[in-house]
């Protein structure tokens, strides 16, 4: 008897592992160093209150993206692993955001929305 099935047994497919070139890796390393110098430099520039944090974090996110995508090979990896990383970060944001919902609004006697 022939039994047919439409899906593969599980998600492991045969694929070539990505090998980064030396030039690529050095380029990322140098970019990260330059961004570090940039963020230190920017910290000496007077930027008004909330935006100094925004600028510092933006640079940090760009650096983190470079490390995750190219050093940690997420760029070539299965999308599921990227999803895990983004999911973890989303839950972290959730935790902070909902905690701030309390700590920032303690003074309101009743909800002000």
């Amino acid at each position, binding site marked *: *008897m022939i039994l047919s099935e439409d899906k593969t*047994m599980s998600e492991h497919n045969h694929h070539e592992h990505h090998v980064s070139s030396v030039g690529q890796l050095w380029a990322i390393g140098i970019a990260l160093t330059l961004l570090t110098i940039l963020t230190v430099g920017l910290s000496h520039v007077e930027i008004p209150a909330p935006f100094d944090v925004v600028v510092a974090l933006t640079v940090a996110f760009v650096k983190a993206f470079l490390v995750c995508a190219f050093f940690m090979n997420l760029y070539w990896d299965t999308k599921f692993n990227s999803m895990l990383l983004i999911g973890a970060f989303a839950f972290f944001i959730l935790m902070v955001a909902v905690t701030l919902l309390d700590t920032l609004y303690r003074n309101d006697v009743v909800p002000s929305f």
Partner: protein
Amino acid sequence: MATAEVSNKKTLKVQRFKPSDNPSNTYLTDEKGVWAWMTTVDHKKIGIMYLVAVAIFFAVGGALALLLRTELMTPAKTFIEADTYNQLFTLHGAIMVFFVLVPSIPAALGNFIMPMQLGAKDVAFPKLNLASFYIYVAGAIFTFIALAQHGLDTGWTFYTPYSTESSSSVIWVTMGVFILGFSSILTGTNFITTIHKMRAPGITWGKLPLNVWALYATSIIQVLATPVLAITVLLLTMERWLGFGIFDPALGGDPVLFQHFFWFYSHPAVYIMIVPGFGIISEVISTFSKKTVFGYWAIALSSLAIAFIGFLVWGHHMFTSGQSAVATTVFSFLTFLVGIPTGIKIFNWIATLYKGSIKMDTPMIYVFIFLFLFSIGGFTGIMLGALSVDIHLHDTYYVVAHFHYVMMGGTLIALLAGLHFWWPKMTGKLYNEKLAKIASVFIFVGFNVTFLPQFVMGAQGMPRRYYNYVDQFTAFHQTSTIGSYLLGVGFLIILYYLMHSLFKGAKSPANPWGSRGLEWQATSPPDFHNFDHTPVVIHGPYDYHQPMEEFQLGLAVDTNGHDSETAKEVVDKEREQWKNYSLG
């Protein structure tokens, strides 16, 4: 001999393998001796070790509960001091939550059953699995050191600043919980990877047993929530040890922030405890009504929905704590949302019974008990989510009764259902059905006599964690105490007949319930590698309209290329190979 086209490209040669009723070689006869057990990486043995550990802790926690109930026979002192009482209820809570409920279903039953339901030989990381068990033991040792020192009197919630001032051994316990957390995290990590990567040919996401779906949702919560518990108890330890000033108001900290941190883990943790129970219920209810589960996707996805929404409702433990009004409102709203997927599950299970072929064996009796008790737990949860009512009921016996209905009436009853369901599979022995039914009556009656009065006295104002109480509550407390003794008797009967079956029980056939589940297509008890062959799955686990033969297919040519060998030879050969295995 048949062929199954399992992937788009490949055609597999498939052959029917009937589970032998007289297995020459099982995981129990293999690798005998204490040392072999202690160093085993076999998921089944690790599952059994967890089960034994959980049972011991449950006995300890249960004994503590009986002591507490006995003390509450009279309004004033009955036989122990207030400080002792405070230590007992703290330990009862901490042991039951951290050492019993959290690992009970995933680490004990899940470890044993889940890889078999996937048709895998083991979990993805067997050594890590063993490591999780020893980390659990290490956590337990730390807690027992605390007991030998000054005990713990903070309540299992460790609320600051009481826990930073208390003269009991808080640090030993927080370190114990910290260590224990890693056990839970590693189990979760292991399970997620196993479910993704270790499924046998043909098991698509739509053919995954609902127990596996439930464990998947549980593992996600474990991985996302437990690290926050670790950091919370670490900060608490530092607060006590060095005076960090993050949680202690005397040093500039905020006790409500501690509650946020604590409940960010501990609320999802109640789903770590209950969601695997849902998985068991789905398996049992379908087997004993011999019928496809109604609303497979509704049940599977509602587990994930619970896992997700469960992260957003922690603040409902803090309605009276002094958190901001806007947070309270948002948390209350989200709390109701988490009730919906739970309700969906209950309705789907009941619909599964419709036009089934229902056999009221012990596991099914526990499922019925579960559905009744858990519904009450759920309804009273809705009550507690309603803001104005919660203000009145918060921290009273109403809450105590509610979470016992959910945690004991839910998780523990589901655990009993699962234990009775898979007991023949795990041990290869049948238990005394008549005694089991008698015990279930004791459990059901005892449970309700214990906890129903607590709803009433809670609503009337009886606060929780009270050593002395005002006279008007005496009758309720006494009824409750008598109920707890009945419960105790029920558990003793269970212990008796299970032990009896272990040594003198009748031999169980491979599939005593006629289940279509993959784990039942192996011998009872299973072979060392679960299956003599790599199973191939073409039907869903609940396709009772398909003939049994089509659930017993396996690769005609084993992937390891030793199809002509007997199971014994395979085991021997692979053990030889183990010696060369490297970590990784």
